[in-house]
C-alpha cells in the first residue's frame, strides 16, 4: 500500500502526460508556477540556503559575535586530527547498526502481526503507537526518571540491574540509548510495515497454501520478499534517524560517561553551541549530511532498489 503510493508520488510529471491531452480544455484553468512560489521561497530560505551556507561556514571561524572570518582548511585540519571526532563517527556507526539490528526484526514481526484483521489487533496497535506521539524530550526525561539509580526501576529490581547505575558505564549507556530509541521508533516502523503487509495480494498466500507451504514458509517466501522495498525505506529512515539522534543523548547521557556516547550529531552541538566554535560545528554538520547521503545511496545500491520497478513483478 505504502509502496504503491510512494511510486505514484515519486513520478510528479507522470500524471500529466498519462491524461489524454484534450485540446483547449486541458490547458485552460491550470494554475501557473506562481502558486508554488511562496512555499518554495520560504523553504529555500530556511533549508536550501542554509545548506549551502553551512558549506561556506565550514571554512570560517566564527564565535557567534561579529562576522565569520575566512580561515581556509583550518577547521577541517582540526577535525581530522581530533580524536573525539573520530570516536564520534565510530559511535554513530555503532548506533546506526545497533538501531537497525534491533528495530527491523521487531517492527517486521509486529507490523505483519498488526496487519491481520482481528479486532483486538486494532486496539493493541492503538497502544503500541503511543510512544510515537511523544516528544523525544518527554521520552528521554521519562526514561531518565525511570532509570534513576536511587528512585527508579533498577533500584527496585536490583537482582536484574546490579548496582543500578546503568548510565555510568559505556556499554550501559549505549544499551539504554539503543533501548530508548527502540521504544520510541519501533511503532513508527511497525506502522510502515503494517501498511505494506496489508498491501500484499492475498492471492499469493492462497497459491502458496495450495502448493502446501506452511505459515513459516509463507512468511519467508512471500511476506519478507514483498516487504523488501518497505524495508529499504525503513532502514534509510533508521540510518538518518540514528545519525541525527540528539535529544536522547543530550538528556539521557549528555554524551557521557566522558565522551563515551558523544555521537557526531551531539558533538556538532557541543562544538557549535557550547564551545561557540561555529566553524568547526559547520564542518561537522557537513560531514553529517555527506555521511547520511552516502549511507542512503549505498543502501539503495546494495539492495538494487534503483533497478527495481515493482514488488508485484510476475503477477
Amino acid at each position: 500500500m505504502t509502496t504503491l503510493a510512494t511510486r505514484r508520488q515519486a513520478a510528479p510529471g507522470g500524471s500529466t502526460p498519462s491524461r489524454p491531452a484534450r485540446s483547449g480544455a486541458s490547458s485552460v484553468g491550470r494554475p501557473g508556477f506562481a502558486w508554488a512560489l511562496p512555499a518554495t521561497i520560504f523553504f529555500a530560505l530556511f533549508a536550501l540556503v542554509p545548506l549551502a551556507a553551512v558549506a561556506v561556514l565550514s571554512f570560517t571561524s566564527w564565535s557567534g559575535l561579529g562576522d565569520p572570518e575566512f580561515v581556509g582548511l583550518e577547521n577541517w585540519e582540526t577535525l581530522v586530527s581530533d580524536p573525539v571526532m573520530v570516536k564520534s563517527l565510530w559511535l554513530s556507526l555503532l548506533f546506526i547498526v545497533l538501531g537497525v539490528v534491533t528495530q527491523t526484526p521487531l517492527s517486521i514481526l509486529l507490523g505483519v502481526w498488526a496487519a491481520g484483521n482481528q479486532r483486538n489487533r486494532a486496539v493493541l496497535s492503538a497502544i503500541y503507537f503511543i510512544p510515537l506521539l511523544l516528544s523525544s524530550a518527554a521520552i528521554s526525561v521519562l526514561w531518565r526518571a525511570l532509570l534513576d539509580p536511587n528512585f527508579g526501576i533498577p533500584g527496585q529490581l536490583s537482582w536484574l540491574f546490579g548496582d543500578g547505575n546503568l548510565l555510568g558505564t559505556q556499554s550501559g549507556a549505549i544499551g539504554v540509548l539503543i533501548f530508548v530509541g527502540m521504544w520510541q521508533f519501533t511503532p513508527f516502523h511497525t506502522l510502515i510495515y503494517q501498511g505494506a503487509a496489508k498491501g500484499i495480494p492475498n492471492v499469493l498466500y492462497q497459491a502458496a497454501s495450495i502448493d502446501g507451504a506452511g505459515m513459516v514458509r509463507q512468511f519467508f517466501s512471500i511476506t519478507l520478499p514483498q516487504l523488501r522495498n518497505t524495508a529499504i525505506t525503513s532502514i534509510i529512515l533508521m540510518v538518518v534517524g540514528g545519525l541525527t539522534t540528539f535529544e536522547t543523548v543530550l538528556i539521557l547521557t549528555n554524551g557521557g560517561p566522558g565522551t563515551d556516547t558523544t555521537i557526531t550529531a551531539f558533538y556538532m552541538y557541543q562544538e557549535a553551541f557550547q564551545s561557540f566554535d561555529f566553524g568547526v560545528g559547520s564542518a561537522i554538520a557537513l560531514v553529517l549530511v555527506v555521511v547520511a547521503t552516502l549511507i542512503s545511496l549505498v543502501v539503495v545500491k546494495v539492495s538494487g532498489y534503483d533497478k527495481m520497478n515493482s514488488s508485484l513483478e510476475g503477477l
Partner: protein
Amino acid sequence: MKTRPNYFAGIGSFVWLLIVAIPLYVMLSGTFQTREEFGDNGPLSFPTSFTLQNYVDAITSGFGRYFLNTVVVTVGVVAIVLLLVPPLSYAIVRSQSRAASFVFRFFLLGLAIPAQAVIVPVFYLINTVGLYDNLIGVILPTAAFALPICTLILSGTMRDITGELYEAMAMDGASPARAFFRLVLPLSKGGISTIAVFSALQAWNGFLFPLILTQSESTRVVTLGLFNFQTQYGINIPGLLAAVTLSMVPVLLVYLFARRALVQGLMGAGGK
C-alpha cells in the same frame, strides 16, 4: 487464508505491549504519589495514596507559561503550513509548467535534509534579522521543515481528484483560483486535516530549534521546560513525571479524536 493463529508473533506482540505499557503505567502512578511514598514504595508498586500536588507543583513552577508558548508556536506553524502547502500542492499536481515538477523534486530532496545540518546557518540568519529569543524565530524554521512532508501528503491527496472535475469547471470558464477554492480545497479536506494535525505534532514536540533559538524563561516551550526541570529538580521524580504527563495530554487527546488523520500522516511520512 491466514486464519491459523500465529502464536510466535502473538507472544512477541504481547511482550512488546508490556514494554510499552509498563513505563507509561509507572509514569502515571508516580504522578499521583508524594515524593516520600514514591521513594519508599519503588516505581513498580501500586500506589497507596492519592495526591494531585505534583501537578499543581509542575504548573506553578512555570509550565503554565511554557504551555502558552508551545501553543503559540504550534498555532503559528500550522497557520503557515495551511497557508503555503495547499497552493503549492495544487501547482505540483495541476500545473503543466516544468518548473512545478522541478519544485516537487526540490521538496523531495528537502525531506533528506536533517535540521541539525542547517542549524548553524539558521541560528546566524535568525540572529541577523533580530528574531533570537523570539517565538517567531522558532515558528519560521519549524514551519519550513514541516513543508516537505506535508507537501508530499497533500499532493498525494490532490492527485485523487479526477481530471473530469477540473474540465467541468474549466468548461464553465472557471479560473485556476476559482477551481482551487470551489473544487480542490473542498475535496482535499481529509489531506488538509492530516497535514494540520501532523505539523501541529511536529511543532508541539519540537526541541532543537527552541533549544538553539531561545534562551529566556519567557520564551521557553514545554519540551525545553522538561529538560530544564530535569536538570534543576532531577531528584523530584514524581514532579518530573507529572510535568512529562502534562506535556503529553494534548497530543493524546488529539490522538483520541483525530487518530485517522495522524496515522495517515505518519504513513505518508513512512512512504517517503
